[in-house]
């Protein structure tokens, strides 16, 4: 249910260029054609009572409360379903209208519990408000007739209740589930008095509901109500901020009671989410005050020593002296840092500055290394900029959408809802994925083609698609010749036309029938606006960068860059992956993707930072691990990442961490990496600091402090203190000053200020003199690099091969309710839906191995073994199994290998040859994990954690 403070115009805004002028109660108002009388009245400042109408949903016209009189017309039309017509004169108040509205309210209230004073919606209930607005004073029917007041409350969902006794069957929830979320989980069952909202055969938890909260948001009563509000009551103030989960970057209103969050409500004006949310952002914020939060800084000499709780000053001082000691002993380049894609732009900027200026080397990297680093390489090489080309709104204009290596309904659910809406409107869909992801067939959406390729053959499939387009004369030659390097195109064209790139030649490798490839290619090439969306199923391969290049080649070939509805759209995993990359977190690049080898760029930074910048690239994360084992890398500062859980080949990673003499972990929890640390600096959650995040559409949005840092310092303040202790003082009073420095040094951020973000709501970079309000669509007139560059993408099979011993391919990924390593979501009721990682396996493979659904099975690769519970499902194709890495004890990365993308070292998470066997016991690695975890917990002092009651 929405807060009273937020204006609800009743029906959605229209964008028609044609305008219509009407008079509402004598007030002239001009609106776009197609606007409802209800919305026009709202624009004119005239409030018409309403219940079933809300501006996030198309008008339905069922409650009859918004009736009006229109001059020259008979009857009393509902203003929500009546569109404005030129010259229309509308009257919103009359004795007759008042009687009608009062009559409607009488009927509603006659079947409604009169418990307003104890109702959780008290103070924020549209039904209550409307009773007051229409002047309801009595209910002539009494309260003793047939009613629904004895229906039991459905409390199955961990986050909200469904109390049918308060339901007015306005169907806002049903329509929200359909129109906004696109899940179609809710329905109105029965007719007349028997009508009721149903979420499936039993209850909400057992239904198709994905707990996005759209229904709760839409409900005008307390029928659907957040449990947090039931418990805490209505908020006393709000803080606008940005979600800290996926790369969609939804705008939220944190509703607060003092320093406590009582509800997170998606912001209607949020340009990334337009008032929508998912189960993570909307509900799974409780981790921020979870008892496991680290409360105090701690230090120890060896990882077998007990932790010693110390002051911030002592912890920072110890960390700094260790870094300097190690550099004195092993050299300047023996230390490094890792920035976080969960922290703000300002914080990642400071960490890379700390490494480059205070450590004096370029050994800084970020978790994008293990997700979207190939995006940076591939798009910079072909288009000239390491970022997606569109805004999310662009999908509204797409005619054909390719989704390759992405599962938006799970990993980017708010954008997926938007995409599904466009698909329901008739846009075509091509899914390229080894799994039958939900998008392949979901209510009212069906892919035209599902190219269920073998993992590791993305390049082959893309080459085959481009081959068809070129050899069948479907390429947009005029576009290519005007916008791209022609010599390079001709070279590429000769390559892609080779018979070896035909669908027929490649079908044995890809497993995709040639005719399907040809059909998909023709569909995409002939669509008006073709858009490509991709995720980690593209990047996390040995040919991840080649695939990104192949995607850019395909977009250029079909003329699908530089306008709305088209483009190359990387769906970023974590909230600030784009931002952390923008901020110079890669070891070879300073902020703004400028190579450290460029003397003019180094000079710019050296001038402002007052120290020389090294001209050679630093170590990437996997190289840091190798160098640590080699003995030339001895200290690491990790902010907001859990490399021990998230990075591949766990044994190798742990060996590297054990080789370090000083590991500084700066995090909100004692994560897996912290078990190998020597210094703990308590982190601050996104609710505890100011800053900005940049989402997958390059949108820079404000993160605003809603409560003080639980451990006393925001992350940027702790990094600043470390720099100071290292003898490199930084002077910032507020993150806005850090952003001012970023803007001064980075051409694409030149026009960005906090004041402008506050004024515009958010800004998509580039934002500079050429684009003072930002850039929704890139490469409109020309590519950032000038002419687009086609690059040859030869398909090279991965070195990770199946064999008799390891006959299956394991691919890993994410699910809706959990996020990344699960550090946040595991500490929320989201574990209701995913209490453990499981292994999805095709029935054929399961039967061959005698594996039953729900049974514990062994998963073994050349690198290691773990055990998982099997889920037998036809979502998988035979020969391919799938799991997630949200729970550390699952050990998914014990199994994955250190093979990686040739260009960026992004790990090949998506292809590991494994064997799966039945009736397993917990693996030796897992037993060791349990034992080590217990030992580490015993080394924590009492009171180290926020909720410590030991």
């Amino acid at each position, binding site marked *: 249910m929405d807060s009273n403070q937020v204006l609800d115009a009743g029906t959605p805004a229209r964008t028609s260029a044609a305008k219509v002028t009407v008079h509402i109660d004598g007030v002239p108002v001009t609106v776009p054609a197609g606007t409802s009388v209800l919305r026009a009245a709202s624009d004119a400042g005239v409030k018409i009572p309403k219940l079933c109408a809300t501006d996030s949903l198309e008008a339905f016209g069922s409650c009859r409360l918004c009736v009006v009189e229109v001059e020259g017309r008979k009857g009393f039309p509902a203003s929500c379903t009546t569109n404005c017509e030129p010259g229309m004169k509308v009257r919103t108040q009359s004795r007759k209208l008042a009687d009608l509205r009062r009559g409607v309210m009488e009927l509603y209230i006659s079947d409604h519990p009169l418990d307003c004073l104890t109702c959780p919606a008290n103070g924020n209930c549209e039904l209550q408000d409307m009773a007051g607005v229409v002047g309801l004073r009595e209910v002539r029917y009494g309260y003793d007739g047939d009613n629904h007041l004895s229906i039991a409350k459905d409390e199955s969902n961990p986050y909200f209740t469904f109390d049918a006794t308060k339901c007015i069957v306005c169907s806002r929830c049903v329509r929200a589930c359909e129109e906004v979320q696109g899940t179609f989980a809710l329905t109105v069952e029965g007719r007349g008095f028997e009508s009721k909202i149903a979420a499936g055969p039993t209850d909400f938890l057992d239904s198709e509901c994905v707990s996005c909260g759209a229904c709760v948001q839409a409900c005008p009563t307390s029928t659907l109500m957040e449990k947090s509000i039931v418990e805490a009551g209505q908020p006393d103030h709000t803080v606008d901020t940005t979600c800290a989960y996926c790369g969609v970057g939804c705008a939220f209103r944190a509703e607060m009671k003092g320093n406590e969050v009582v509800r997170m409500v998606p912001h209607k004006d949020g340009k990334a989410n337009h008032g929508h949310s998912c189960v993570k952002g909307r509900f799974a914020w409780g981790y921020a005050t979870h008892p496991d939060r680290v409360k105090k800084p701690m230090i120890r000499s060896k990882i077998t020593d007990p932790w010693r709780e110390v002051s911030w000053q002592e912890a920072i001082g110890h960390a700094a002296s260790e870094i300097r000691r190690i550099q004195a002993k092993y*050299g300047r*380049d023996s230390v490094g840092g890792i920035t976080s894609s969960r922290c703000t732009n300002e914080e990642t900027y400071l960490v890379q500055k700390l490494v480059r200026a205070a450590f004096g080397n*370029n*050994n800084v990297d970020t978790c994008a290394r293990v997700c979207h680093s190939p995006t940076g390489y591939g798009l910079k090489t072909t288009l000239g900029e390491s970022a997606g080309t569109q805004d999310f709104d662009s999908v509204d204009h797409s005619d054909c959408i390719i989704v390759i290596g992405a599962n938006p309904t799970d990993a980017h659910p708010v954008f997926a809802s938007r995409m599904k809406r466009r698909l329901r409107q008739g846009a075509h869909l091509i899914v390229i994925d080894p799994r039958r992801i939900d998008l392949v067939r979901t209510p009212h959406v069906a892919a035209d083609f599902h190219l269920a390729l073998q993992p590791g053959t993305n390049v082959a499939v893309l080459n085959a698609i481009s081959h068809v387009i070129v050899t069948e004369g479907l390429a947009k030659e005029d576009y290519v010749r005007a916008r791209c390097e022609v010599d390079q195109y001709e*070279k590429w064209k000769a*390559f892609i036309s080779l018979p070896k790139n035909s669908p027929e030649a490649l079908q044995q490798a890809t497993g995709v029938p040639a005719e399907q490839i040809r059909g998909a290619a023709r569909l995409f090439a002939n669509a008006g606006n073709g858009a490509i969306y991709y995720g980690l199923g593209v990047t996390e391969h*040995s*040919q991840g*960068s*080649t695939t990104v290049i192949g995607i850019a080649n395909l977009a250029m070939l079909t003329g699908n860059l530089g306008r709305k509805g088209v483009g190359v759209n990387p769906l970023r995993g974590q909230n600030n992956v784009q931002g952390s990359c923008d901020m110079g977190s890669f*070891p*070879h690049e300073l902020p703004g993707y400028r*190579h450290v*080898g460029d003397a003019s760029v180094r000079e710019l930074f050296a001038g402002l930072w007052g120290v020389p910048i090294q001209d*050679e*690239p*630093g*170590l*990437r994360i996997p*190289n840091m691990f*190798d*160098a640590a*084992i*080699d003995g*030339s890398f001895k200290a690491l500062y990790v902010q907001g990442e859990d490399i021990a859980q998230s990075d591949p080949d766990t044994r190798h990673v742990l060996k590297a961490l054990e080789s370090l003499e000083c590991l500084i972990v700066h995090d909100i929890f004692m994560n897996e990496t912290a078990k190998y640390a020597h210094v703990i600096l308590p982190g601050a959650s996104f609710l505890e600091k100011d800053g900005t995040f940049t989402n997958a559409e390059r949108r820079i949005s404000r993160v605003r402090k809603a409560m003080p840092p639980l451990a006393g310092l925001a992350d940027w303040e702790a990094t600043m203190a470390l720099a100071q202790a290292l003898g490199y003082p930084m002077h910032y009073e507020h993150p806005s000053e850090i952003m001012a420095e970023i803007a001064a040094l980075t051409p694409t951020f030149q026009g960005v200020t906090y004041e402008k973000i506050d004024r515009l709501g958010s800004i998509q970079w580039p934002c500079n003199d050429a684009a003072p309000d930002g850039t929704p669509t890139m490469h409109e007139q020309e590519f950032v690099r000038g002419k687009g560059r086609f690059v*040859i*993408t*030869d398909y*090279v099979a991965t*070195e990770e091969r199946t064999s008799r011993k390891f006959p299956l391919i394991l691919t890993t990924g994410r699910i809706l309710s959990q996020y990344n390593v699960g550090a946040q979501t595991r500490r929320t009721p989201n574990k209701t839906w995913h209490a453990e990682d499981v292994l999805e396996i095709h029935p054929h493979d399961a039967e061959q191995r005698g594996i039953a659904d729900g049974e514990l099975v062994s998963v073994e690769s050349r690198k290691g073994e773990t055990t998982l519970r099997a889920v037998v499902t036809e979502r998988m194709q035979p020969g391919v199994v799938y799991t997630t890495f949200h729970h550390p004890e699952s050990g998914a990365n014990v199994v994955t290998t*250190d093979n*990686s993308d*040739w*260009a*960026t*070292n992004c790990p090949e998470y998506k292809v590991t040859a494994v064997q799966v066997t039945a009736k397993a016991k917990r693996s030796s690695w897992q037993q060791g994990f349990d034992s080590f975890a217990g030992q580490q917990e015993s080394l924590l002092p009492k009171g180290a954690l926020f909720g410590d009651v030991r």
Partner: protein
Amino acid sequence: MDGAKLVRMANQIAAFFAAEPDRAVALQGIAGHLKKFWEPRMRREIFAVLDAGAAKGMSEHVREALVAHRKLLEPAAK
């Protein structure tokens, strides 16, 4: 650094650039990539492997690129 692993990584880089029909351009691509993305100790190590005659399994493209572009790639002495 693990020399064998670096050779494997270099071979993977070479496999991408080897698709370029002009061999000189391909070698330049390999060398440019190593210069741009490999930290000096990694480049130092792969030259050590090459010079020790231990480059078993190193692709011809990599070997040629290292030899042809040694001046560009070899880090300054520590």
